[in-house]
């Protein structure tokens, strides 16, 4: 009955619609199954054993009990490594900033002077970013020995990649109209950069650098584990010697450093925005 009232091609359209709807549903089910499979294999590969958390609870309570109260009598010995940790981050961020700026300029598609330099700088940025700072620290400890210097170098190299990429993207997304206007006045390339590009992107670059400093302070805490100076080295030593009251002091100092850096960085970035 109904079919007689429909245009001649309507049944075909409806069949095609229902087939495409069924196909889309099937694809959705397959995607959900794949997602579940990925999660399950991850649980197997990392050998998740919730029962170990229950059996290990006693051990964890024991460590916490032995960590209390924190032994503040040695606080003065913690202050120097704490300063070292902050200074490693400051050095790493500043060196990274200075080295990543020229790389970012040639790695920004809209201002790069040549395609060859563009790909070369993108390669350097990619390489320095893809190798973790802890691995860079291991390499620099081997090269220049133990202490804060390899830590600073590791953060500097890793920061080149992280900041270089963000700087380049900031330059690529800037408004090009003032730059084109300066170019048409006959200004030279370097003048266009310092009078047009830099003032336009400076607040963003400073914001990125402050955020990187905040990240680097957190990273430099860990670099001590591989002998690259700072509070991390003290933390590892105290743990190896089962000095848990000393460990708790180091963790409190770490917490204060991280929280203060995070807050100061956020305030400074808010003011720049």
């Amino acid at each position, binding site marked *: 009955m109904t079919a007689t009232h429909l245009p001649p091609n309507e049944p075909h359209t409806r069949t095609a619609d229902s087939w495409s709807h069924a196909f889309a549903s099937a694809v959705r089910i397959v995607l959900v199954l794949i997602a579940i499979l990925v999660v399950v294999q991850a649980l197997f590969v990392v050998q998740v054993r919730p029962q170990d958390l229950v059996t290990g609870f006693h051990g964890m309570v024991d460590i916490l009990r032995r960590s209390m109260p924190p032994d503040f009598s040695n606080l003065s010995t913690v202050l120097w490594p704490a300063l070292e940790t902050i200074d490693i981050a400051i050095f790493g961020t500043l060196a990274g900033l200075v080295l990543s700026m020229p790389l970012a300029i040639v790695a920004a598609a809209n201002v790069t002077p040549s395609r060859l330099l563009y790909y070369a700088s993108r390669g350097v940025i990619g390489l320095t970013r893809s190798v973790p700072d802890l691995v860079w620290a291991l390499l620099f400890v081997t090269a220049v020995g133990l202490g804060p210097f390899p830590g600073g170098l590791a953060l500097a190299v890793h920061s080149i990649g992280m900041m270089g990429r963000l700087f380049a993207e900031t330059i690529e997304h800037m408004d090009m*109209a*003032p730059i084109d206007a300066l170019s048409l*006045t*006959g200004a030279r390339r370097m003048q266009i950069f310092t009078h047009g590009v830099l003032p336009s992107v400076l607040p963003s670059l400073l914001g990125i650098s402050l955020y990187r400093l905040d990240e680097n302070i957190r990273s430099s805490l860990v670099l001590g584990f591989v002998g690259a100076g700072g509070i991390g080295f003290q933390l590892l030593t105290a743990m190896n010697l089962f000095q848990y009251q000393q460990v708790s002091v180091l963790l409190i100092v770490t917490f204060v450093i991280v929280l203060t850096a995070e807050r100061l960085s956020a305030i400074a970035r808010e003011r720049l925005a």
Partner: protein
Amino acid sequence: MLDIRRLSLRYPNGKLALADFDITVGAGELVIVLGGNGSGKTTLMRCITRTLQPSEGSVCVNGTDLTRLTGERLRCARLELALISQHASLVRRRSVLANVASGALGRYGSWFTALGGLPAMELHLANGYLAEVGLGHLAHQRAGTLSGGQAQRVAIARALAQRPRVLLADEPVASLDPEAAEDIMKLLRRLAGEENLAILCVLHQIELAYAYADRVVGIRDGRMAFDLPRAEVSPDEVRHLYLSRAA
């Protein structure tokens, strides 16, 4: 001052955007180009500034043919030719004074200017140009805080700082309210006379062309439709410019 002969541009797809365009703008003259959307007005401006390479013809500024120049020689020749466009294109985070003075950067090759410095003499002159466009009191304000009309005046002051012989204006009042648009046109009219500038200005506002132009040039489908003193331009000729091709 500005002498354009048989200027043509054919895009790689074969489309003729500009055909055999002839126009001369003398010192102290304000010539206004009228034409509909897609008629070739902006293409003409871009061919003059050499941001587009014309297929044929010449663009002579004070006797130098820009179409034959490249690299450093083109950069030096461009010093004679300033452009203001629809949007003021100022560096928003810099002061008004620094924006104006940066118009003269092309005249300097020193490390001082390459590293972000502005010569004291240019800052002094920039104050004068700002006073000339009526914005001397805003010299130390950030460019990003200006209104559209003020920003366009600063763009004109920056063009003056370049100390050009020819000033190109590509729809300089398109984004301004009628009062600000009148102000800008009055300013251009005055500058043509006082600074002895050759001004070629693209507009959409017919009434402004009638009020301020020495000559009016009509452009349609990339070809010159007429080039007449403003008193001789008939409303019919202008209306014809804006008729669609289908009509």
